[in-house]
């Protein structure tokens, strides 16, 4: 919907400026007037929440850097210095630390939203794939950020994750040595992770811009999954969705504040308050909660190289999702069988996360294997077959019809 600018500047300066840089018109088209389906629900507010969380991470991160020292002998103490001495340092660090978790809560909801409403289907494949890349860069950013406080979990998490690359045949060891800048995770590693942790959020911002560009070519999907047929199906983004998004953001911030103020370490691991010791591995090492499902997949495969391949495939398979789901119907609302499988899949992902948090012993190992197998079966068998076998429910004629059909009769009564 990137048609010609309809913006007409009113002031003389506005006109002069518009002829030289039409940025105001561009912003008006894309942020205010943009025609948006009138039936978006709250699951669609998580994109806006994500954009705001990225800004929160960048602002809190930049001020943390003013007090942080990326050097193995000093890093841990500099974070403690932030917590104890720096004015409001505790608040800034807890905002950043819990902000990362909130960022992932929002991205997971956003992704499951996309999977349920078929947002990845034509013509939005590139939009979806950009989303998967954003998710990968987010994971890399958070991983490197977690190394910075140089606690026990920082160190051993970094060691185990960078060692994944040692599984690459022939060149694996040279690759890990290169990543570390030494023979183990050490000061050179901390320094480069700091550099990249500062850089990647800005790469993310650029990727988000591409993501929104790709979104604004076909426009949003909506819970019916059918295309916009005319102006009766849409409302302008402002004030309808600026308001809805703003409301959702404020509620989300309250949830975020609950953790920052009342449970700042609830989602973290206490072992990370022990300074890094390269000679002792903690008894139970596990990554941050947002990586646990993938960690469970890694451990479920008893072979090193195959485990690493399975783990990376479990994420990269999302790139192929637009072609794995063969159903012509976009929205899960009209796919009675898909709905059930979607719920099962969501539960499997959470269960994998639970397994990832447990030691690799006894029945956890068996369950990990069953769930890992199901994860891949969902994408490689269930989705392709379901599209061919399932009979979808009838779709409404248009978005407007669907909205009107759902309206309560009293709302339809003419005002007198």
């Amino acid at each position, binding site marked *: 919907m990137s048609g010609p600018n309809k913006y007409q500047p009113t002031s003389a300066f506005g006109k002069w400026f518009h002829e030289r840089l039409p940025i105001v018109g561009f912003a008006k088209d894309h942020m205010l007037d943009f025609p948006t389906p009138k039936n978006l629900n709250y699951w669609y507010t998580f994109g806006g929440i994500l954009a705001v969380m990225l800004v929160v991470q960048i602002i809190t991160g930049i001020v943390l850097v003013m007090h942080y020292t990326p050097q193995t002998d000093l890093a841990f103490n500099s974070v403690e210095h932030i917590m104890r001495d720096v004015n409001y340092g505790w608040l800034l660090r807890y905002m950043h630390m819990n902000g990362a978790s909130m960022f992932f809560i929002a991205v997971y909801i956003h992704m499951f939203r996309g999977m349920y409403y078929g947002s990845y289907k034509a013509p939005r494949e590139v939009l979806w794939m950009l989303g998967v890349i954003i998710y990968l860069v987010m994971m890399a950013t958070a991983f490197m950020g977690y190394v910075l406080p140089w606690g026990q979990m920082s160190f*051993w998490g970094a*060691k*185990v994750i*960078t*060692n*994944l690359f*040692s599984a690459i045949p022939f060149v694996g060891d040279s690759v890990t*040595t*290169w*990543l*570390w*800048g*030494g*023979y*183990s*995770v*050490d000061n*050179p590693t901390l320094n*480069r992770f700091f550099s990249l942790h500062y850089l990647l959020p800005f790469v993310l911002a650029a990727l988000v811009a591409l993501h929104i560009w790709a979104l604004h070519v076909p426009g949003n999907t909506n819970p019916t999954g059918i295309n916009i047929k005319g102006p009766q199906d849409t409302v302008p983004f402002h004030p309808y969705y600026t308001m809805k998004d703003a409301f959702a953001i404020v509620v989300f911030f309250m949830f975020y504040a609950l953790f920052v103020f009342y449970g700042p370490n609830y989602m973290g691991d206490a072992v990370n308050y022990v300074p890094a010791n*390269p*000679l*002792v*591995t*903690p*008894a*139970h*090492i596990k990554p941050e909660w947002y990586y646990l499902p993938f960690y469970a997949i890694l*451990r479920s*495969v*008893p*072979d*090193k*190289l195959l*485990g690493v391949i399975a783990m990376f495939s479990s994420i990269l398979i999302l790139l192929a999702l637009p072609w794995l789901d063969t159903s012509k119907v976009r929205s899960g609302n009209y796919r009675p069988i898909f709905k059930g499988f979607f719920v099962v899949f969501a539960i499997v992902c959470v269960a994998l996360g639970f397994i990832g948090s447990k030691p*690799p*012993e006894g029945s956890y190992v068996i369950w990990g294997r069953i769930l890992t197998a199901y994860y891949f079966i969902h994408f490689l068998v269930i989705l392709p077959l379901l599209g061919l076998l399932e009979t979808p429910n009838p779709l409404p004629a248009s978005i407007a019809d669907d909205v009107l059909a759902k309206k309560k009769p009293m709302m339809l009564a003419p005002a007198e």
Partner: protein
Amino acid sequence: MSTADHAHTDVNRRDFLFIATGAVAAVGGALVAWPFINQMNPDAAVLALASIDVDLAPIAEGQAVTFKWRGNPLIVRHRTKPEIEAAKAVKMEELKDNVARNANAKSGDLATDENRVVGGKAEYLVMLGVCTHLGCVPDGANPSREFAVVEGATKTGGWFCPCHGSQYDTAGRIRKGPAPENLAVPQYAYLSDTKIRVG
């Protein structure tokens, strides 16, 4: 412009410039990329710290001491007779990895107990405490934890990795779990009967 002239000559000045510029840019780009990639490899300061001397005399039989070498834990264990015998009794077919993984052995040497040590000194096992799975430190020096790592129910000792449960026998050879290789024996030499230089 007499474009017609160019139409029937196969190679013109612009084609030449295009190919020459492209070729120089490609080679130049590759040459400049290398310093940017290579700067991440271990620097001179890291390489300079690459060797240490270890005195074996104070390590009592049955005791293991961990040193830091190249940022990694180096395990030196003074093995007991039963540990050595248990390791010698293992047949090559029972091993998951039958390569010595000893920087001092010849390539292709089998992972016999003799090939896991240097100079026939079976009592001193020197190896990296870096699990060959994903790099955690295998636990073995702790006498309160007894492992029935191999050989059925007899607790012969060995090392257990807490991260994903790999088990190594009394010669540091992988016997169970996801790790693919035996614990690495670094390059080292005896300076005297009870002194070694590692690295």
